[in-house]
């Protein structure tokens, strides 16, 4: 680790103190052990002369050890309390936010879920996978988990901390260098535990404000679309429920209810069509909810068929590595990504390729991450196997 925050500097020092303490212990024990072995290696006619054990020597040894232990304990407390103390925002940090003077910690909610982090920023903006924070600013990260225990860990910036479901853990830190930092969850959380990485981008305070506004705009646009669809969906749902109630009513004895509700039969016939249309639109809305995730390195592309027609088989592997984090192992949605079978673009090769290449609607562009061949393969897999239902 290379510490880039006041807290991790303390941690690093303590690690070295611990290392030297461990080294002293290990060397002392083994010097004693091998000294005892070397001097009286083999019993060549030697007879044992029992050493004299007195209480005195035990107390002296115990006293020395106690002193050593107390020293380590005190050092441990000093450096740990330094590492966990909240660092203050410096003048180079985020001193004004949206034109108003800003002090105190920048509160960001981090929610862990299998297997991605979601970050909620103060103004309603959010991002998946990557946390963007301003440099030189006190950050309060409120860690939560929606499913199992995850560990939020970026060794260069902050102490490792568990996000336990049902509990909010506050983590305070300050990043003193701009750049990208990585870490990995270190509590086994299921299948995709290993790729569950933590990514923090530390930017200048100005850039941070820009980012937050951009993010908010994108989300607003998405949300409006989604809300529209949501209301439509709800209307349809209400209709559908009414029908259901009617059907049930027929079955049971309550015939009066039927008269009271008076659902015209033509509407019943229209219902399927309406649902279909709603679904199609839902894709657009769904996309905005897609996670900005899956930023894993490309891999498995080597085996892809060279040139020629896109191979769904090779695409399966690419999908598992890059897409399943959000879209679920089978592509039927799950961790922030929508169900691919409901997406219009996923129904044809060209649309799917376009979506993967350019991203959009919350989904990151994979143009740089995946080769063209891999993109066409994964698109083929999505179109043929997932949507095509092979």
């Amino acid at each position, binding site marked *: *680790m290379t510490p880039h925050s006041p807290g991790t500097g303390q941690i690093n020092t303590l*690690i070295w*103190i*611990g290392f030297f303490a*461990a*080294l002293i*212990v*290990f060397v002392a*024990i083994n010097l004693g*052990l091998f000294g*005892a*072995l070397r*001097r*009286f*290696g*083999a*019993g060549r006619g030697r*007879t*044992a002369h*029992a*050493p004299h*054990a007195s209480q005195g020597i035990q107390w002296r*040894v*115990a006293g020395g*050890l106690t002193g*050593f*232990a107390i020293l*380590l*304990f005190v050092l*441990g407390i000093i*450096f*740990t309390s330094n*590492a*966990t103390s909240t660092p203050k925002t410096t003048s180079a940090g985020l001193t004004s936010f949206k034109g108003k003077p800003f002090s105190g910690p920048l509160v960001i909610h981090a929610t862990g879920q299998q297997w991605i982090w979601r970050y909620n920023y103060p103004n309603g903006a959010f991002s998946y996978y990557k946390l963007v924070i301003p440099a030189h600013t006190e950050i309060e990260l409120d860690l939560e988990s929606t*499913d*199992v*225990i995850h560990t939020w*860990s970026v*060794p260069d910036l902050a*102490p*490792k*901390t*568990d996000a*336990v*479901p*049902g*509990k909010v853990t506050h983590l305070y830190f300050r990043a003193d260098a701009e750049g990208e930092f990585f*870490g*990995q*969850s*270190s*509590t*086994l*959380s*299921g*299948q995709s*535990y*290993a790729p569950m990485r933590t990514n923090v981008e530390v930017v200048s305070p100005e850039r941070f404000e820009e980012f937050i506004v951009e993010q908010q705009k994108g989300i607003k646009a998405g949300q409006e679309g989604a809300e529209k669809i949501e209301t439509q969906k709800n209307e349809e749902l209400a209709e559908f429920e009414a029908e259901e109630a009617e059907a049930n009513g027929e079955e049971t004895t309550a015939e009066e209810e039927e008269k009271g509700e008076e659902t015209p039969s033509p509407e019943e016939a229209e219902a399927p069509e309406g649902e279909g249309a709603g679904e199609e639109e839902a894709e657009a809305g769904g996309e905005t909810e897609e996670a900005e995730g899956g930023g894993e*390195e490309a*891999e498995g592309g080597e085996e892809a068929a060279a040139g020629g027609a896109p191979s769904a088989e090779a695409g399966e592997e690419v999908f598992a590595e890059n897409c399943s984090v959000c879209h679920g192992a089978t592509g039927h949605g799950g961790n922030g990504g929508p169900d691919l079978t409901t997406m219009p673009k996923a129904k044809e090769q060209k649309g799917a390729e376009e979506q993967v290449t350019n991203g959009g609607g919350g989904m990151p562009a994979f143009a740089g991450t995946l080769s063209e061949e891999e993109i066409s393969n994964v698109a083929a897999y999505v179109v043929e196997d997932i949507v095509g239902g092979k």
Partner: protein
Amino acid sequence: MSTTTTDKPRPEIAIDGFPKRQSGFARMITSADHKDIAKILMVGSGGFLFIAALEFFLMRLQLAIPENTFMEPVMFNRILSLYGATSIFFFALPLVMGIFLYVAPLQVGARGTVLPRLSQIGGALWVAGAVVLYSGFLWTPSQAGVNPLPPLSELAFLNENGVDAWLTACGFATLGFVLIAIDLNSTLRVDRAPGMAWRRAPIFSWAAYVGSWLMLFIGPILLAAFTMLMIDRNYDGTFFADGGGGAPLLWQHFTWLFYSGAYMLVLIFAFGAIAEIFATFSGNRIFDRKALMASFVAVAVIGTLAYMQNMYTAPIGLGWKYFAMLMSMALIVPVGLIFFNLISTLKDGALRMRAPVLFSVGALVMISLGLAAELQQSLVGAAFYLKGTTDSTAATHFALIGGAVFGGFAALHYWFPKMTGRTMGEQLGRLSFWTLSLGTLLTFVPMALAGWEEGQVADAYKFFNHTGVNFYNVLSSIGMLILLIGVILILTNAVASIKGGARAAHDPWKGSTLEWFALSPPPVHNFDVRPDVRSDRPLDDIRAAIAKRAEQTEERAARESQPVA
């Protein structure tokens, strides 16, 4: 403290020509004799040592190169979970409890255990647990990891019955250990030979006594946790599920308490066995018995109380973390005293460098390495980075391989003649020792470095390229292959020596504790006559008495054969 002896020496009881015990499989499994039950545990744990090493090797194979696709993530997690159960519940603990159960009653001159049927049920439960764990074809094995932390191990996230099987298996085994501990504890308490006050009891028996108390304390806690998780999974309980007011952290408190206690149990076992071995092979007395005995108790209590050092990253109050650190630091004192006394026992002796000593020295090196590394991680701040990395995995493995593999095989080499009437092969023993040492160092030193320098996380089914850990992982995988070979060698040695080892007398090492007074292997009732104990080295007294009597006899014979003047 030599016996001046008014009591009669009894050389005549160690005669040949005893009626041979009936052997055979049926006798073995129906016997309530502590030695037979212990044999089942020891032989079984030997098998599981191989299986655990194989499982670890498979995981290392997956982690040999970055982003390997040799194994599916699910399969990796299953093997990981199996490995956790196998190495702790089916290798380390049964080996420790087995050797305790075999040797300790013999050492205190008991004619058997006082509650033999409890031990018998315990052994049977352990076997049942092993069967449950490994009849994996009936269910999909658990994917919940070495310690199945809820909520991951809850029904909502793993709804196959693998976790139930895992819990049942380890629960059976733990219940077995608890029953055996009750038997062992009672025996050591009430059935020591006449005259054997605790200050005269062998140090290994004291270790067994402390260890059985420890198991009595930690075992039921784990069983409670297992039961609660079973209720959660099968009867809609909410002990650990966060929905409905359960507390996921409660599980960590319960289980880490057990795991820390089990860790201490293995260490106490190893230290006890090593003390006996050093005393016997150097010809010295144990340097300071009282200090050693007190240190064992301190290790058991303090080490178990330090369990919260496994939860440094969990959301518990900082004060609790400092408490755990305080306990870990306090552990320096008794552990340091133990090392000091063991080394002083070795010093200035007439050392015979046989395989048991070699393994003991290896065990002390590995344990000191592991505990030193744990010391670094028990500093709260350091753990903010090191916990959950492969560095912590390596530290735990050093200490537990040192305690259970090296310490366990030191004890096995030492007591093997008593158990089988034959010694374990010396040459193969040395070869396996060096292979094991090389393998352990080569596996876990690179792992520790990868965890420390680059923060490689534990339990992950893959690591990423360009994170600077490729070389470490390749080294570690090669080391694991060597370690696996070492395990195979040592098990081969043990198995081959049961029938083919050099025949040993009843007291091949010139030991000074009572187990060497019995026949090899001992009969069902262990001793025809329970000797009176007058010192902490009763067999030395008996030898002295025999020598004296022989001298007297010779004198008398000489006198009588002189012509009457």
